[in-house]
Structures are given as C-alpha cells and as structure tokens.
C-alpha cells in the first residue's frame, strides 16, 4: 500500500453537496448517486459521509461540492468529474486543482450552515465568520475552526516587524469610524523605545441603535482575544485591556470566559504556546459616557481620572495609557487580524475598493424589511444593502434617506443610493462610515425631527470641556426645537449652518467635530423641509406635533369611539353623524387617530 493510500484510508471524509435551488437546477442532485456509486467502487463508503447543505452562496459556480477535512471547494462539478474527485482526492489525497475554486480561507465559512441566501448572498463574513455558527462560550468550537492558528503562526515563523508589515500591506483601516490605517498605527507604537506598551480593544460602543461590537463579542469573543495577542506580539506589548461598556453584561461575561479559557489552554499568560512571548488581557468597564469611546478620553477613564479628551498630538501610539505607547483599535479591527494573518494580506487586498480594503459590519435598522447585523465587502452600494440584503422598505412606503455613522454621520437621500461603501465615497457624499450604524428612513419620518434626535444625543453626551461643543450644540438644539415647534424664524437655517461649521472646526475631539453632521447634512439634502417648517408651518411627514392638525372626514360613520377616547373632550357629534374636532381644545395627542376603525381621521 502506498503512503498516500494509507493516509486516505485512515481519513474519514465528509462530502458536502450544496442543495441550494441554483445548484439543484444545475444538477447537484444527480451528483449524489454518482458519488455513492464511486465511493462503493473504491471501498470508501464506510469511511465517508455525504451531507447536503443550504445555499453556499456561490451560485454562479454551482453545483458546489465541498470535501472535508480540508474544506476543499469544487465548483461547476459535473457527473463526469466525480470519478476523478473520488480517485484523486479521496483515494490519493490529491485535491483536483482543476475544479477547486477556493483554498481553505477563514472567511465565509458560515455558508456551509446557512441556507438563507437572500439575506446572506451579498454578504461576506470576515469578522463575523463564526458569529451565529459556534458556541461562543466553548473554546473547543473556536479551536476547531482554526482558532488561534494565526497566533501560533506569528509565534512560529514571523518576526514582530513582519506582522506589522503584513497588516500594513493588507490595507486594513480602523473600523471605529475614522479609518486610520491600522498597520501605520502599529508601526508608530512598535518603533517606540518606552516600555511597557499596551494594546487596547475599544468596545465602548455608544451610537444609538448600534450593536456591531456587542454582537461580535457575544458571538465570537476568541477572535478579538486572538487579534489582540497578535497585536501585542507585533508592537511589543505584554498587556492588553478590553474597555467595554458596563451595559453589555452578556458580552462582558463571554469575553471574560474567553480570556480565562485561553489562559487555561496556555494561549494567554506566560510563554504562550512554549514561545518566549508573554501576554495577558484584563477587562475594564466603561461607566456609560459616550465620549469615552474617544481614544484619549478612554485612556483617561482607564487611568481612573475623569473621562475627558485631550488635544492630540501626542497620539496614544506614542504617549497613551500612563504616558506609554498604546495601540487602540476597535473590536471589529481586532477581529480582522487573524484572517489577515491566515488568509494573507494579498488576499485581503483583493476585497474592497482602491482605498478601503476588506469588509464592514453594519447594524441595519429602521424602515427596512430585514433588520439585522450584516457584513459586506467595501464597495457594495447602499442600494444593494438596503434593497438586496435588507429586502427594501416595508409596507410599500417610499425611501427617503439613509443615515450612516450614527450621531456623527449624515443622512443621504435617494440620489446617493448608488454610492459605494467606503471611507472616501461616504465622506464625499456628506456622511461618514462611522462605526457601522445604518438607519433607513422612509417618507413617514421628518428630517428636521431626525436631526434634532441625533443632536439631542450628542448635546447630552458632550463632556463640557471645550466651549464650541458645550455651548454650540446647546444653541443649535434650541434653534431646532423652535423650528419643530413651528416657531422657526427667517435666517434660522443660515444660523444653524454657521454654528455647525464653527463647531466642527473648533471642537477638541471627534464628538464635537462631528456633532453638527446630522443637522448640516439634512439641511444640505432636505433644505426644503426646513423651509416648509419655518415659512409655511408645515411638516410634510406630519411628525412635528405643533404643525399637525387632526380632522374628521366624511368617512365618519358617527360611532363615537373617538369622542370617548379624547382626553380633553375636544370631539363632539351625535350618533351616526359626522363628528368634529374643536381645534382650540385639541392637544394633538393622536388618540382619536389611533382609535378610528374607519380611517376617517386624517392628519393635515
């Protein structure tokens, strides 16, 4: 018996046949009987299992067949190819290069399990590759999917310099929002002589409606731990800190367990995997201030002082925690690192656009059919995200805008729907990438009201250290409030623009520098709505209470339901006759509108 033959006999193969609709149409089911026959013929039937999977998301290359172990993917497989695959790959352990369409990449592994092609088809999962696949509290699950192999690889045959060079070559940029090249950040810290150095994971996610970091940690905490350990090795740090908000108890529990399990396996602590590298991670809880997501404020918070930003430079990479060189990266950035090491910077570069490489995770929310956590390659258009992944706007309503970047971002109207997602394109369109909040807005929302909502948030969270942010946002909010109450004055829009631009230029940190964005972008793209509020006292979405009146139409059958619920007795009328609302008494609570079963009450 040859050596190859021995190996093949010793291995149990699991062959997965894609059972998605496209693959079935292309004849995948005929492959199965052929496979069985060939396995029998070579005496492999006892040692192989054939499984079906849901759509693997590679429909254009169907039928798809996967051979495990090894995760070799074969595409465009015909019945005639089966004997070759069985004989060459299964019998002689020589994968058939002619048909193999993918190497053993880490990304997208989840497609083996998920059949949900409509939602997952346009996605590409790098950082979320294990989210929703594995048991996050079981390190065996992570280890079985090449977990900690990237760490082992850098410890085995990469110098710290070559790790930094690899990350730099990948083109990875910070996923926290600003998009600073990660490799460059690491290089600055690695070059510093002062020790000890630190690496920090920023998990102080605070944007309203954002849950990317929480889900990533809850779904796959070890990826973050591994990424940080690799970062520690690259820059020469022996200590890592996860700064996570206290409002995320489950995420805290899971990352704490991940750190403990990694320690127990010798993957953290002294002399990791028998090497000379020692590294450990501790958890620090945030106390609930939005501004502590800003890196210098975060450092102050860890040091035990008040969480306020300070001017930069010096940047944390040079003088960070306790005045020592510190790398701070976002959860998602860290989760990219193991994939870059194992799949290589060269591969990573092929994903995304010219200036923005890789993928981005978004928390898709608002008026969209499939709300959810998604990860798409950079360069995917907003339209693809909202209509293909998100499934469009529910209830036949009209799309109005999409808000990206949370309270620091902007609202983009329909003409920007084909904007490809990357740092530069979004900035050019007047919004930002941000950390990944994406809220879809339909015609039922008032843009002035939305701008007010976000400004209210940042105004509340302003730490108060610098005047433009503290006073400026307050004044802007006053003007916005007055506009939504129907008391807007001529010149208010110009005043908002002037104030907003001033705050952006003069504020100390990112919070103030970006706080006016929601207002400025809605003025730019929806100026007519502001004008209607001010000059005509009209809110076209009928959201601003003071600008709405309720009226009863001739559809009224006189059932009296509205009369009974009205808290201020503003509705009068006799049974079976059309009722009327006394506009002087009406407080615009909307109770009658919600109660009427005949659509007889309208907002005008």
């Amino acid at each position: 018996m040859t050596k190859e033959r021995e190996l093949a006999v010793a291995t149990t193969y699991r062959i997965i046949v894609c059972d998605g609709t496209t693959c079935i149409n292309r004849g995948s089911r005929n492959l199965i009987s052929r496979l069985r026959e060939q396995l029998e013929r070579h005496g492999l039937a006892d040692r192989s299992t054939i499984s079906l999977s849901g759509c693997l998301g590679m429909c254009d290359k169907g039928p798809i067949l996967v051979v495990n172990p090894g995760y070799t993917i074969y595409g465009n497989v015909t019945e005639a190819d089966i004997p070759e695959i069985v004989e060459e790959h299964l019998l002689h352990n020589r994968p058939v290069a002619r048909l193999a369409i993918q190497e053993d990449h880490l990304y997208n592994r989840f497609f083996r399990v998920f059949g949900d092609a409509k939602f997952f088809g346009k996605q590409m999962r790098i950082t979320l590759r294990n989210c929703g696949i594995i048991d996050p509290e079981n390190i065996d699950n992570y280890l079985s999917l090449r977990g900690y192999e990237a760490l082992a690889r850098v410890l085995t045959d990469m110098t710290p310099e070559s790790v930094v060079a690899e990350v730099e070559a990948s083109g990875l940029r910070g996923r926290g929002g600003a998009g600073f090249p990660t490799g460059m950040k690491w290089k600055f810290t690695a070059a510093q002589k002062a020790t000890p150095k630190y690496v920090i994971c920023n998990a102080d996610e605070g944007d309203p409606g954002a849950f990317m970091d929480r889900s990533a940690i809850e779904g796959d905490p070890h990826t973050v731990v591994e990424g940080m350990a690799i970062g520690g090795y690259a820059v020469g740090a022996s200590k890592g800190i996860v700064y996570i908000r206290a409002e995320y108890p489950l995420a805290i529990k899971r990352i704490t367990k991940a750190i403990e399990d990694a320690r127990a396996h010798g993957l953290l602590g002294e002399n990791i995997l028998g090497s000379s590298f020692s590294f450990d991670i501790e958890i620090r809880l945030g106390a609930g201030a939005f501004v502590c997501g800003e890196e210098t404020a975060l450092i102050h918070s860890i040091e035990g002082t008040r969480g306020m930003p300070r001017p930069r430079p010096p940047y944390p990479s040079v003088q960070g925690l306790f005045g020592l060189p510190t790398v701070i990266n976002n959860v998602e950035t860290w989760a990219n690192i193991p994939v870059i090491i194992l799949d290589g910077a060269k591969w990573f570069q092929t994903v995304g656009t010219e200036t923005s490489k890789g993928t981005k995770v978004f928390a898709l929310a608002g008026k969209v059919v499939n709300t959810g956590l998604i990860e798409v390659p950079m360069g995917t258009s907003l339209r693809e995200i909202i209509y293909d992944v998100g499934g469009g706007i529910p209830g036949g309503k009209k799309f109005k805008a999409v808000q990206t970047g949370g309270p620091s971002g902007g609202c983009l109207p329909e003409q920007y729907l084909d904007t490809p997602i990357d740092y530069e394109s979004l900035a050019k369109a007047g919004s930002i990438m941000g950390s990944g909040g994406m809220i879809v807005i339909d015609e039922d929302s008032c843009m002035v009201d939305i701008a007010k909502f976000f400004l209210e948030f940042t105004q509340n969270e302003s730490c108060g250290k610098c005047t433009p942010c503290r006073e400026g946002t307050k004044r802007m909010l006053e003007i916005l409030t007055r506009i939504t109450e129907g008391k807007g004055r001529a010149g208010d829009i110009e005043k908002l623009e002037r104030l907003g631009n001033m705050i952006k230029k003069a504020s100390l940190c990112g919070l103030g520098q970006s706080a006016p964005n929601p207002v400025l972008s809605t003025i730019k793209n929806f100026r007519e709505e502001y004008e209607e509020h001010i000059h005509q006292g009209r809110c076209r979405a009928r959201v601003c209470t003071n600008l709405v009146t309720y009226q009863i139409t001739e559809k009224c059958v006189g059932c009296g339901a509205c009369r009974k619920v009205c808290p201020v007795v503003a509705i009068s009328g006799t049974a079976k006759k059309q009722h009327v609302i006394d506009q002087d008494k009406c407080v615009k609570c909307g109770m009658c509108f919600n109660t009427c079963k005949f659509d007889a009450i309208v907002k005008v």
Partner: protein
Amino acid sequence: MPTPLDLIKKKRAEAVSRIIGKGYLSTKRVYVGMATCEIAAGSKDVMEVFQKAISRGLTDIYLSQKGCAGRCNLEPTVEVIEAGKTPVKYGKVDKDRAMQIIERHLKNGQVIQEWVID
C-alpha cells in the same frame, strides 16, 4: 521542541475529538441563538424547552447555543442540522414552536416548512 504551530494543531485535533465525542457528527444538532438580542426576544425559554426535553429522555441531540447571526427581525432563531439533510433554520421560535419542533421535526423528521427562513 514542538513549535507553537505544532502545538495548536494538536490542540485543534483534541478539540475536534472532544466535540465529536459529544455527538457532533452522529446526532441532530440543534442550535439556539443566545445573544442579548435573541434572549430579549425570548430564546432563553426556547432553550429551556429543549433542555427539559433532553432531561426527559429525548436522545441523539447535540444541543448548543450560538451567537447572533444577524436576523434581528426573525429572532429567536433555532437551527437543526443533520448529516445528509439540508440544514433547517426556524425563525420567531417561541415555547410552543420549540415544542412542535421537538415533536414533529426531531422525533418524526418532518420539517415545519412555514416557519423556515429561506
């Protein structure tokens, strides 16, 4: 002296055999979504239904939690994966649906099509 890479490969092999030892390949695998969002939607109750069924004698099940896969509007989600069959993912699973999944799908091999996310 084994390299870190040798050590991690050994660890992986051990992890895989531990998982297989728990019945990963030989049984029906049931995954219940257990991230904050899923729990808020009621997945803890769903998990309990499966746990109770197992303690009351339901066999050949590999029950596991999982993180959030991102289908917020259809949570809680439950997946049933079985060798030789297309994986099935159920959406909006509550206690009652969980019980029916046990009775109809796990015990009788009948997929409950109307709750499947596809």
